[in-house]
């Protein structure tokens, strides 16, 4: 079943065309890597697919519903309820402890603090970061930070997990560990995964590769 679909998506920042007519489909439950050299538009594609931004033209469909023309409120709700997002390092709230960071999406969704904390602790345990629950981001190593970020993305049991260079600043062994965790957790939760990366070894963790070059798709679209 097709879960995510882009049809002729175009996006420009000022004069530079970030995406020029990208079309693709992502099946439910598959893991896809979007690769390409820097500046190829892969992050922009991720932002369009996840409803963080709207393309200038073209359509984005999720679960049979067009999402690019939804208003910001509806897209916010979609991101909150159906999507989980993992960024590079340094995107956790620095003043909050790890467990509070993980609980945040639940709190935004209106759950009580005690309940959110319990769920968050469970997720931290799942990614092997239960021991740093009370630490603040500045006290954590790169690998621990990414574990917490993954726990935060997973905490609402999302249907799709988007990851933007999730191993960006980690050495290869730590990066692989984090990636295996992400993939394992996604599989356990039957979530679809979309990873943006410039690293071929990261791409090899996904079922399929989508290659972007200068904002357009090249090859790799065959499953």
């Amino acid at each position, binding site marked *: 079943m097709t879960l995510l679909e882009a049809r002729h998506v175009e996006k420009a920042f000022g004069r530079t065309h970030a995406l020029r007519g990208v079309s693709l489909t992502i099946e439910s439950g598959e893991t896809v890597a979007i690769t390409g050299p820097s500046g190829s538009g892969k992050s922009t594609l991720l932002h369009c697919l996840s409803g963080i931004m709207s393309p200038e033209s073209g359509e984005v469909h999720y679960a049979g519903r067009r999402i690019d023309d939804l208003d910001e409120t509806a897209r916010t709700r979609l991101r909150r309820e159906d999507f989980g997002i993992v960024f590079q390092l340094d995107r956790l709230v*620095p*003043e909050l402890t790890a467990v*509070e960071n993980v609980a945040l999406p639940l709190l935004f969704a209106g759950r009580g603090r005690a309940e959110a904390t319990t769920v968050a602790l469970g997720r931290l345990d799942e990614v092997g970061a239960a021991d740093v629950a009370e630490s603040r981001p500045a006290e954590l190593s790169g690998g621990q930070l990414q574990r917490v970020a993954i726990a935060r993305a997973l905490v609402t049991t999302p249907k799709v997990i988007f990851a*933007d260079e999730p191993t960006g600043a980690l050495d290869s062994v730590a990066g692989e560990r984090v990636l295996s965790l992400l993939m394992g957790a996604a599989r356990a939760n039957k979530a679809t995964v979309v990873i943006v990366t410039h690293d071929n070894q990261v791409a090899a963790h996904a079922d399929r590769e989508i290659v972007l070059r200068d904002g357009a798709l090249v090859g790799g679209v065959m499953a």
Partner: protein
Amino acid sequence: MRALLTVAGMLGHGGSPPERARVRLMAVGAALATWFLFGAANVLALHGQLDQRFGPIADPGTRGGSAFGIALLLLPVAAFLYQSGRLAAADRERRLSALRLAGATPREVRVLGAIEVTRTAALGAVVGAASYLLLQLAARSLLPPGSRADVDVPPLWGLAAMALVIVAAAISGMRAGGHVIATPLGVTRRANVRPPRWYGLLLLVPPCTIYLAVWLLAALGDAGFFSDGARLLMTLSLVLVPVALMRSAAWMVWFAARWVGRRAGSAETLLAARALEADARPWGRALAVVGLTVSVGTGVGLVEADFLAIGRHPDPFWVTSFVLVSLALLVAIVVAAAALLVHQAESLLERGPVLAALRAGGASERELRRVLTRQGLIASVPVCGLAVAASLVTLAGGVAIQGVWSLLTIGHSLLMGGLGVVAAVLVTTASRRRLRRAIAPERLRTE
């Protein structure tokens, strides 16, 4: 030294937009400080008795106090200057420390930094002095010919005031960058882990004890036989109230944030409280000024109510005085709010990527805006609340004998406190556009 000046001249043309904003804001702060110092000097330069409508500056006896009152407005300006100096301090340090790679010694870099801030401060002082003199010229044309109010700022005093502003602004500007540490290879932020101190609150103990005791004695019917010494002690202890409020504002902000953070049930409150807990000092600095205005405002309210209570028709002297003091309080709150606004801009600039990531993860812009508003509330409510309470307790004796008019004093105090809270919240509302820019998806781009 000549080479350094050349480099400083070259550097003057560069800088990121926030850095240029810092230069402008610091110049405005220096100009304001010059204004108030000129105003105070102008008052002191007056001679003889003037028309009663001039209020507190009409009488030679109250001129010293008036000049001091105007000079007190330097407090919020100092907070504003300091906060402006911190704006984009990381950018500045990065730019300057890059010179180290080009062969500059640490001392030369410090001198270059000093030249930069001094230049900005001097620009502000000159603009302030010029605009003051122009406005004075215009105002004096309205005075009847031969008026005794027609006096200049003594040139020597004026120059001294400008020099003072330049030196103070330059020192403040240099110290404002202290939270970032620069090496030739990069800039790191120094985490200020030490929470603010609470000792300032101790200063509230003497006035509150003394006045509660007096109140109690009055209630027992034993009032009215205080010696002059006791009265002087009571008056002196009053001064401790605003000092205590100013010294402990940062601690109160920190304490309230921690208290709320532990109990927060919603994401917005949690984020607001924790951010504030980590960042209590700047809020404390601005709110210290607000606390000061609340306690001074309560005193003014008491005097006003006294007049009305005894049914006296206030003469022009008092009317002008009340208006001027209220105006000064308003100016103080506005300048303090401006300092907060600058701080808010800096913190949004710095926290942009984190906030953008929160938004991407499903927090709406409205919710993030609520975080800012709650920050304003958590910080300002305790400071303003304590300011109202402490002021009313110490003035309780006076308030109690006013009968129904005491409502005016209490109302005035609450109004000032409310104004402080409203100002803090308004600041967060004013940061809306900046927040929107900070969380724009473009800020998420890493490639």
